[in-house]
């Protein structure tokens, strides 16, 4: 018995010592706390604060329009709405903490707008924005509809507002609610950021995993499906132009898509919000590049970057108005979809395998 144990230990030690000579740390060389900190400082915080200030300006403009109800205040409000909706494009993916808890995204940007529900709310005058049935009767799509879709011309639209006070009241209520819940979310980060930065475990609820999941979910659903796939008819027997984001203001659909895609690329490649400069230290791309043994264009980090550049060019090539793109040449929209889709495979298969992060998102919006 003793002999066997001794022999066994001898073998074990030789195996270990032989290997020790070629010791090499192959593990991911990144510091997760730095990564989360980078995400907070360079993406989450500046994106949210820019959005909040744009939304505040929009809210002020809607108050002004409520009083004046004239052409110039309408056009000013429209401009402020587009600015805020543009800034929103970089915020939607940050669905963690308070935002996740209060269904922030579902209250801000579920489209197409449910115009029947909006009309019903306007005439009844009582509504609860926390009721999930009102998700498609609030947020940006509702603003878009109320500023562009209530009449055939600007005069007709203003007429709707001057005929009664209910319409203006609803517009202000929707805007105010958007402002309030945004304040909730932004405010929560004051305390949440410490928890966020230190949550580096590899569990389903740790910040790193949730953020990676959010990023994938946003890429696949919020961006790919909602903005391109669903209106282009990928998931239905024919295209559905009414599902284009910003359907009533029309000309902005491409602008929104490009802004959102740039937000995706900047987050992925580790660029600072605002300046667009690379920040130092870990980011999603650097981790993937480190983990993948391939180099050059075969390295997964670069592969994803290169494909994203191609996809962005394709989006750029589309008509400013996705509705007319669908009506004139939907094939081009579907080809753009395919280019975006190729990256989903790399993210959900290759990247997840490298990171060993489990996908746990469930469809919550039920489309």
């Amino acid at each position, binding site marked *: *018995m003793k002999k*066997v*144990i001794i022999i*066994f230990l001898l073998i074990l030690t030789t*195996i*270990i010592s032989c*290997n*020790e000579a*070629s*010791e*090499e*740390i*192959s*593990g*991911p060389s990144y510091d*997760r706390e730095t990564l989360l900190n980078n995400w907070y400082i360079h993406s989450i915080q500046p994106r949210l604060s820019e959005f909040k200030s744009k939304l505040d300006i929009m809210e002020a403009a809607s108050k002004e329009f409520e009083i004046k109800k004239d052409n110039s205040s309408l056009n000013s409000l429209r401009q402020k709405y587009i600015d805020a909706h543009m800034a929103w494009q970089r915020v939607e993916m940050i669905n963690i903490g308070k935002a996740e808890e209060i269904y922030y995204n579902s209250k801000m940007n579920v489209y197409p707008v449910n115009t029947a529900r909006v009309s019903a709310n306007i005439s009844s005058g009582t509504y609860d924005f926390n009721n999930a049935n009102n998700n498609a009767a609030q947020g940006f799509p509702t603003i878009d509809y109320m500023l562009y879709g209530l009449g055939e011309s600007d005069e007709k639209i203003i007429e709707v507002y001057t005929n009664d006070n209910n319409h203006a009241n609803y517009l202000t209520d929707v805007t105010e609610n958007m402002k309030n819940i945004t304040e909730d979310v932004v405010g929560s980060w004051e305390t949440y950021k410490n928890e966020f930065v230190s949550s*580096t*475990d*590899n*569990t389903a609820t*740790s910040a790193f995993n949730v953020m990676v999941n959010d990023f994938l979910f946003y890429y696949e659903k919020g961006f790919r499906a909602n903005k391109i*796939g669903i209106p282009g*008819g*990928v*998931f*239905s*027997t*024919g295209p559905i132009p009414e599902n284009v984001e910003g359907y009533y203001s029309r000309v902005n659909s491409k602008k929104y898509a490009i802004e959102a895609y740039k937000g995706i690329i900047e987050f992925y490649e580790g660029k600072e919000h605002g300046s667009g400069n690379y920040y130092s230290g870990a980011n999603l791309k650097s981790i993937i590049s480190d983990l993948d043994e*391939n180099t050059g264009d*075969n390295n*997964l980090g670069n592969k994803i970057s290169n494909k994203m550049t191609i996809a962005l060019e394709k989006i750029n090539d589309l008509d400013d108005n996705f509705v007319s793109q669908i009506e004139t040449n939907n094939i081009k929209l579907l080809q753009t979809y395919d280019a975006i889709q190729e990256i*989903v*495979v*790399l993210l*959900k*298969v*290759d990247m*997840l*395998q*490298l*990171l*060993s*992060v489990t*996908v*746990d*998102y*469930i*469809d919550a919006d039920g*489309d």
Partner: protein
Amino acid sequence: MCYSIIRFWLKGWIDEIYIQPEYHFSYYGFEWVKPIGEFTYLIFFLCFLSSLCVMIGLKYRASIIIFFISFTYIELMDKTTYLNHYYFISILSFLLIFIPANARFSIDNYIDKKEFKKISKWHVDALKLLITIVYLYAGIAKINSDWLLEAMPLKIWLLSKYDLPVIGETFLQMEWVHYAMSWGGMLYDLSIPFLLMIAKTRLLAFILVIFFHVFTLILFPIGMFPHIMIFSSMIFFSSSFHKKMINFVKEFMSVLGLTIKSKKIKILEDLKYKKDKLTISVVMFFFLIQTIIPFRYQLYPGELFWHEQGYRFSWRVMLIEKVGYTNFKVVDPLKGTSFMVNSSDYLTPFQVKQMSFQPDFILEFSHFIGKKFSSEGNRVKVYADSFVALNGRPSQRFIDPTVDLYDETESFKNKKWILPLNDEIKGI
């Protein structure tokens, strides 16, 4: 066993896995085994009750048969949850039907007023043989180039365990550890049954068993497997050891005031189990099947880890890390229209994950979709857009996107619509 079912129940898994999903993946030939709504709880209860009876040795024969049937039924309901150790329990309970494990220290003794000192040697040997098969085949399966030369998939798994205290950031991040664990695991599996058999090395072997399984318990989410293997390997210990254990339990029970009036029990020397030819031949046949099944993959061309034809029921444990992404396109040939299906409308996230890289799941789900969207006189076509990555390789297309899967049928024949892996894994 009993504990395993309670665990399952407590975690709410019955509801989540067997009752909620709209669709269940069946085993080929067992499509008729389906959850039966709320009554599924009844099956679980039966299973629980019978396992309890088996443990205390009450109506042993009937209990083990009920346990085998109910447990196997549960496993057959949805292959999404397939795990080697569930299969192990199923076949172990099948084997136990033919073995009088109630011969000693059971309630049945108390009822029948007799107890046996000895049972035929082959009863114990059969159990030993089954455990030997499990370890041996698990070890043989590890002799392949991914496992030994690349330390895959252990490398991926260990690297991701950085959040374990003490060893996570240090030990598990070193390359030699991945290789040492891969080789160690292979050598362990191949040698442990023999080390357990030889009396001299038995204690060392058992220490190794405990060490190995506790370690895997910490590292991997494999549920009850470590507990089961630790306890089953105790069968290798001599009968005197087991007597001591029984006496220990008896003493413990008497402390609790649960003395068994053993006077009434007649102690018989030998259990003269009828030399039943049928029993013997069933058990022989069982082992013959067990030794052949793991090698059935030889009948399929291509890479086993990639197409997984003949992968299950073969003690291939923890050998592959696969990530897949599979979407389905439904084409209406009459209207000329097509659309993509959102799989998560019909499947749970866990089912989507498992379906995405296993060809038989993909085929089964294609048929489900095909039936759903076909109407009288208009049979739709279903195509899979599928990408899979295996053991750290880059992703590649998995299923031939030009094949209408609704037109393909499940069988034991080779599935030609699985595209070949652009690589080779050498090994047995």
